[in-house]
């Protein structure tokens, strides 16, 4: 599963991994804003930002090819809109759309691959993201694996009983079975949620997640953040002035 791989990558020990989640999150936000607002010089700026991301991935010792491939997961969604732009006679807009989507996904992936999720969530909490929203994300991340395993068991059971579960959309009876399985999965998720809540209460949970992490924002984090801000903004300004 994707999140298991990212979880493994995020437990690295490079200088990028050691940076505080807040510094990396703010740098990511700046990257996304700078990228989203580029218009006339997208090709040059996009290429420059891609190079920066690749450099960061090398510094973080991430498997380059695997990471670049994983970021392409967003392409099927944006390609639909790109095709519409192409059909409307705007090839540049189509290319920009695909390029921006891919670079944005790659930047998010770099953050997730260099920051363990608990650290990222604590960082987001310090940045003012609502605590309950973060709790939902944490539980989703933790139990995605459990729910996915249950879905696989149900799929295997369906295959054992019917011979095949392929082409669900084109077979009304299979579509009905899949919908039923989805309902069961929802009921099981609900039962898990109740069980988890009971287990939390049994260990004294009141309304706030207390954690072992200390989250010190060090000088190196400030330097990293400043460098990211200067590099990203500076590169864009220089390229736009030059072109």
């Amino acid at each position: 599963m994707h999140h298991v791989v990212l979880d493994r990558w995020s437990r690295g020990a490079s200088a990028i991994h050691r940076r505080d989640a807040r510094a990396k999150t703010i740098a990511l936000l700046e990257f996304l804003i700078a990228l989203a607002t580029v218009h006339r010089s997208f090709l040059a700026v996009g290429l420059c930002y891609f190079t920066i991301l690749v450099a960061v991935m090398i510094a973080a010792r991430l498997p380059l090819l695997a990471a670049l491939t994983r970021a392409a997961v967003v392409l099927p969604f944006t390609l639909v809109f790109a095709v519409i732009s192409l059909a409307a006679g705007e090839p540049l807009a189509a290319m920009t759309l695909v390029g921006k989507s891919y670079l944005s996904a790659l930047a998010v992936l770099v953050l997730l691959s260099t920051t363990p999720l608990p650290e990222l969530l604590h960082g987001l909490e310090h940045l003012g993201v609502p605590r309950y929203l973060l709790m939902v994300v944490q539980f989703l991340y933790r139990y995605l694996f459990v729910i996915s395993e249950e879905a696989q068991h149900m799929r295997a059971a369906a295959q054992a009983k019917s011979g095949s579960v392929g082409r669900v959309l084109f077979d009304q009876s299979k579509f009905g079975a899949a919908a039923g399985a989805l309902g069961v999965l929802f009921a099981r998720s609900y039962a898990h949620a109740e069980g988890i809540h009971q287990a939390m209460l049994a260990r004294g949970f009141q309304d706030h997640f207390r954690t072992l992490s200390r989250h010190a924002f060090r000088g190196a984090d400030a330097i990293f953040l400043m460098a990211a801000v200067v590099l990203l903004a500076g590169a864009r300004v220089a390229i736009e002035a030059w072109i």
Partner: protein
Amino acid sequence: MQPLIEVRDLQFQYDDGTVALDGVNFQLFPGETVAVFGANGSGKTTFVLHLNGLLAGDGDVRVCGMAVERKNLARVRQKIGLVFQDSDNQLFMPTVIEDVAFGPLNLGLGRDEAQSRAIAALEEVGMAHASGKAPYHLSAGEKKRVAIAGILAMRPEILVLDEPTTSLDPPGQIALLELLERLPQAKILVTHDVESARILANRAVFFEKGRITGEGSVEEMIARFSWDRATLKRPATSRF
């Protein structure tokens, strides 16, 4: 001797009208391990959920002399550690060490003390090597051990274990039973596994339709309620 747990005339009915507990009386004394037998749906799990206030029925439940009621819940939950049947539900934090430290942090301990308690508890169950791992990377037996460590880190006086050997392979069951045998706390063992009860428990109670209908030694309860696979007879039609 003062009982650690004292339950008098406990009654509980679910919202759908099902009477789950119908006048339960129970005591647990220091040093005891009591096996709780009974068919599925007989009220065993509902009963143990009352012991730390996760469910609240009519009647009197006292843990270490404290009534199980809202104002005492924090202290009661420190005294009585509940190990759930499904370890996945119990291990909800991203890493093992954070999960084990969850209880001590909720008790108001500082980070350093919570961490040292968590490490000590993991060492006690033989899982210190996994402290940085994510729970979904553990085997069923390892998850169970970590779940127990999460309870031990709260330094409880009583352990309540709901079907602890379920879904464990035989070596995992043996390792878990050895661990439980070593732990000094008084225990309530909710189980269908009579072998575990024979090894760990010195007393047993039997639940039927929300009532305790039998109480005595483990062997007495097994014999009286025919609660052992050895008493099963092979059906005449089962040979092909």
